């Protein structure tokens, strides 16, 4: 195993400030295997300092002990000269401040003032790191978010107006909110939907209106989670500008190949309504190769636009 200097240095500071610690904890913290931790420890044990007259003395004293639960423990009695954790590398502090800026844009999740104060504190100690990453995400409507959170806490039903991503239709639904999930700039509400009679996911930024009711949620824990109904079962072939591929979830992209400056992409979709709208708004950046039915839907929608907007 090759020694990674970055990990070895970090480990030295980590063991100094966290001793004693279980090997499994070290492995989790550094995202490496337990046997790699042992290997690094054996490296560190061999570190030495010059004692004069060609004599070198080991300077890191690390002991591995089995405890009653058969865990190995790492303890450092003395690490000469290392009297504090090593300072963040620039890449580390840039990544941490970038993450904090993301949190700063999620006031529903954390206290924004505390995050801002922390960014300021870190920026003062690590100059130059603050400006490396800029995050600009549209915040979620705090009133809607608070209403949902309260409904989850109080176990009551919500009445919502929801804008479908698939066809942009607006439906009124009564839902029993279960849990809020945060992922890739979107917050999703998992809830039992009385209209669909199944558990559904609702993107919070697509909820136009939310009103808490006094009706208690029934907590239908055995309800069909709807995943089968939501799964995509159609596929299309598109000639597409590569950057537009970002509009598709990675798991829906079945295959791609380069064709000149564009990509031929085989994509799984749940309905033609959404994909036909995406083709329509691409301004020619997406060409439908297959199926012909999708191309016809796109052209029919374009024809309808012309009829509606003839002056």
């Amino acid at each position, binding site marked *: 195993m090759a020694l990674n200097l*970055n990990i070895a240095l970090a480990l030295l500071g980590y063991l100094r400030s966290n001793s004693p610690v279980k090997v499994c904890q070290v492995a*989790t913290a550094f995202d490496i295997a337990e046997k790699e931790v042992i290997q690094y420890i054996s490296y560190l044990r061999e570190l030495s300092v010059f004692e004069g007259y060609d004599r070198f003395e080991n300077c890191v004293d690390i002991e591995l002990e089995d405890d009653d639960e058969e865990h190995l423990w790492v303890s450092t009695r003395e690490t000469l000269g290392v009297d504090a954790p*090593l300072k963040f590398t620039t890449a580390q502090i840039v990544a941490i401040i970038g993450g904090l800026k993301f949190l700063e844009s999620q006031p529903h999740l954390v206290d924004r003032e505390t995050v801002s104060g922390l960014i300021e504190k870190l920026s003062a100690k690590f100059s130059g790191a603050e400006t490396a990453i800029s995050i600009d995400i549209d915040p979620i409507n705090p009133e809607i978010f608070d209403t949902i959170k309260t409904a989850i806490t109080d176990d009551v039903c919500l009445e919502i107006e929801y804008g479908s991503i698939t066809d942009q239709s607006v439906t009124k639904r009564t839902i029993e909110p279960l849990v809020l999930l945060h992922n890739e700039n979107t917050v999703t509400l998992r809830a039992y939907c009385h209209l669909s009679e199944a558990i559904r996911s609702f993107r919070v930024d697509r909820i136009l209106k939310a009103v808490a009711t006094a009706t208690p949620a029934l907590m239908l824990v055995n309800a069909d989670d709807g995943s089968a109904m939501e799964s995509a079962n159609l596929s299309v072939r598109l000639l597409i500008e590569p950057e537009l591929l970002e509009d598709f979830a990675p798991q829906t992209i079945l295959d791609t190949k380069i064709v000149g400056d564009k990509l031929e992409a085989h994509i799984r979709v749940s309905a033609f309504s959404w994909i036909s709208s995406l083709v329509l708004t691409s301004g020619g950046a997406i060409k439908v190769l297959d199926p012909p039915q999708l191309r016809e839907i796109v052209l029919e929608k*374009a024809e309808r636009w012309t009829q509606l907007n003839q002056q």
Partner: protein
Amino acid sequence: MRQLNLLLVLLNSAKPLTRSEIIDQVEGYGDPENESVQRKFERDKDDLRKYVNIVTKKDGDGILDVYQLDKSETFMPDLSLTSEERMLMALAAKAWGDAFVKQAANAGVVVSGIDVSEIDAVHASFGSNERHLATLISALTEKRVVQFEYYSRHTNSIGHRTVDPWQLALHQDRWYLYGFDHDKQASRMFKLGRIRGSVNVSDQIISQNAPDQIDIASMFDEYQKTEPEPTVARVRVPVRDCANLRLNCSKVLNEGDFDVIEIIYDDSFHLSHQIALVADRAEVLQPEHLRTLVDEIVQATVRENS
């Protein structure tokens, strides 16, 4: 191993050391007069400098280089973090969706003694599916010039770009690199999604440093603004439909089976594409310019797909 021994020698020396003194005191080097040993030392020193600050000065006679570790730049300053702040730092590290950036953030948090397992109750993530992020963050922090093939929508062509990276920005769900374009000799914004192939980080250090103040948000606003003043658009749409337009509207007037929705905008590019998304049931009542823009989008699609 030798590099770590070198670090410990520098850590434990009260005075700056010459190259010969260091080679003598670090186990594993050998004869300080040997040229290959000296080259080894230079390589080790450069490797260590990525993580710790080794200061080079002249000795008392002003002849030989001497080396000393700047402890204040090597060890963590006293941050005096509250428990809430420690939790936020761990959450910030966990929030990264990109595995490599997350690893860097996590390593920092872990080394500073914060327990990342404390915050399993909160989930948030961003920055995944962006394969160039980790490379660009590394280039940006090391102040190294990057090179890549870039698709320009303006010229509809792919060209080679050499850029001094200054800032990475996440704006409206897309990542951008802001930096100095060597060929254009001016600052430019690059959408990461338009980078073809991989990003190469060169050994060359950037020639143009970032300006003191970069206000990316204002730059995007100005860049995207197409109208000199906020303008009102009126669009007739069926009731309970066209949710994407309703999410940003300021007023809704009902006309039986239809609603007339008013949207205040200054970015006609964005709004025209939003209307095109529901073009089969949206009637743009005003302004005419907006209707023309939507029509251009729809007709371009028709040409490509007929």
